[in-house]
């Protein structure tokens, strides 16, 4: 609705000039345009530069690293840093922990979001605006507010250093955003489809499972991708709940390595690079979903 009103308002505000120089669409690129393009490329280079530095230095031997500038290419490909990191840290274990936690959170949070938003968007229960806000609190509340009470709760339940402490917590936190997004989506769900299903004798549960979920599947998969990466990147609460060496996630083992005084710099650089690789692979696979999906919740 805002689109229409703004589209009609915008041209009126436009400054009309007296001398209209009509430009051809296929005109050659001007010097100014080339400069702007080069600036955009330079900006992207600045952003990616730290990651490139990581690549250049992760394959240096410790002596090579000590004797050269970080901006130099390695003398020879050397895997000492990567090897030391691999031997000192149980990276495969951390990788598995991260995958296990993030996958289960993504699945559970989507299921929870669908259940909540079904009652809000389709059921249109009374006070639904307030209920959405109630669920959104999970997303708003700072994690340091949850940290100590949940620590004691999981301690009592024997769930500390257990992936389920993180899974349960982040299922609730991620589902808050999912509930918000899906509620407004289901609020506009075509009535005819639901009526047809009801005519055929489908119960509510059946309509949800066999009619609504298949229709909104694309949105649900976008949500899953996001829940996965958000959970993967979480730091504070996993840091608090996961303490045994076997329970750490990828960001946590890197933080631990960073905190150890005797850590060799090449090991740290190699470890940082290795910790980034899963994310980069994930990004390459889901690039479209991520860059498009991020806008899904932005404007209703």
């Amino acid at each position: 609705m805002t689109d229409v009103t703004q589209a009609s308002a915008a041209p009126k505000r436009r400054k009309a000039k007296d001398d209209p120089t009509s430009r051809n669409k296929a005109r050659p690129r001007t010097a100014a345009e080339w400069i702007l393009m080069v600036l955009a490329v330079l900006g992207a280079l600045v952003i990616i530069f730290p990651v490139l530095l990581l690549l250049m230095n992760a394959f240096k031997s410790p002596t090579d690293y000590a004797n050269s500038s970080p901006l130099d290419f390695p003398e020879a490909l050397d895997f000492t840093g990567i090897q030391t990191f691999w031997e000192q840290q149980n990276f495969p274990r951390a990788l598995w922990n991260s995958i296990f936690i993030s996958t289960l959170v993504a699945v559970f949070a989507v299921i929870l979001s669908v259940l909540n938003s079904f009652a809000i968007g389709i059921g249109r229960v009374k006070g639904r605006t307030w209920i959405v806000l109630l669920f959104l609190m999970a997303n708003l509340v700072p994690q340091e507010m949850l940290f100590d009470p949940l620590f004691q709760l999981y301690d009592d339940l024997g769930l500390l250093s257990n992936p389920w402490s993180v899974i349960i917590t982040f299922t609730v936190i991620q589902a808050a955003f999912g509930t918000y997004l899906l509620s407004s989506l289901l609020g506009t769900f075509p009535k005819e489809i639901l009526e047809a299903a009801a005519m055929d004798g489908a119960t509510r549960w059946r309509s949800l499972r066999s009619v609504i979920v298949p229709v909104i599947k694309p949105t649900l998969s976008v949500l899953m991708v996001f829940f996965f990466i958000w959970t993967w990147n979480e730091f504070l609460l996993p840091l608090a709940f996961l303490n045994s060496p076997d329970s750490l996630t990828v960001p946590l083992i890197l933080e631990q390595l960073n905190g150890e005084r005797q850590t060799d710099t090449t090991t740290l650089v190699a470890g940082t690079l290795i910790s980034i690789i899963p994310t980069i692979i994930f990004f390459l696979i889901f690039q479209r979903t991520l860059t498009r999906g991020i806008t899904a919740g932005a404007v209703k």
Partner: protein
Amino acid sequence: MTTTPTRRRTVSPADAARIPQRGGHKWGYWLYFIPGLLLMAAIIFYPIVRNVRLSFFHWRGGRAEEQFAGLENWTALFQDHEFLQSFQNIFLVIVAMVIVPTLLGLVIAALLFDVVGRRFGGKLSSFLRATYYIPQILPIAVAGVLFGWLLKPNSDGVVNQFLTAITGDEVTINWLGGSYGTAMASVMVLMIWIQIGYPIVIFMAALQRVDPELYEASELDGANWFERFRAITLPMIRPEVFVVSLTTTIAALKVFAPVFILTQGGPNKSTYVPSFYAYKEFINGQDKGYAATIATAVTVVVFIVAVIFIRVQNRAERKDA
């Protein structure tokens, strides 16, 4: 929960998408809230209630007795130099996470969409967009370690070596531990680096909504790039600018990992942010009641900011309609 609908028979247009069901009671939908509300109660509401209550007590934690403190924690909070300092830092965090990325994001998104996308091809512009977005998806902890390496003190640091090479003089700045200025600036640069991709992606998607004919018409009228940007682009993507500022402001109020990884709040606790302070107090402090007070104060501020933003947005929408 007791507000089960009493007028469920009156069918209003607002009930558009409801499944019509003979004999089905609308309260049946409340069953679908059971898992969600139970989990919310345990994971979100219980901690909130417990910490708010605890903020009126002194408690050493563990098996120690709680002592009622009245408003002591709260009055102490407003005289606590570290807390006030941490709140001051939040304004700098907002500059680094909200203001700079949003402004830069506007310019870069317009540049990528308007100049690069239109004149040099969509492939280049989506490639650049992806590049700007990469820091957004890296774990903040990992990004922090990366910057920690770049900013090592003395001649070990990459940035110092880089500056030495440029200036010719030996540069040995202790970025993270030396002074408040360099430490806070380092944290802010990390935040900008992480945040910049988010507004770019959102604004570029918003720009696709703008009717290209508007641009062509204004170009025919001789409007230059900046005039078009101000008259067409900005008003069109205002809703997105709003959403980006809301979400990043809330993220800024809750920021933790960059400070934890880069400075640990140092030097001399000068780069504390409230969430880091609360975390420290819960772990090392003598009084969990006081830690709970800090956490509660941050929560209250976050809720207030969220409510103000939503109100402003609703008013803006009503004005538009």
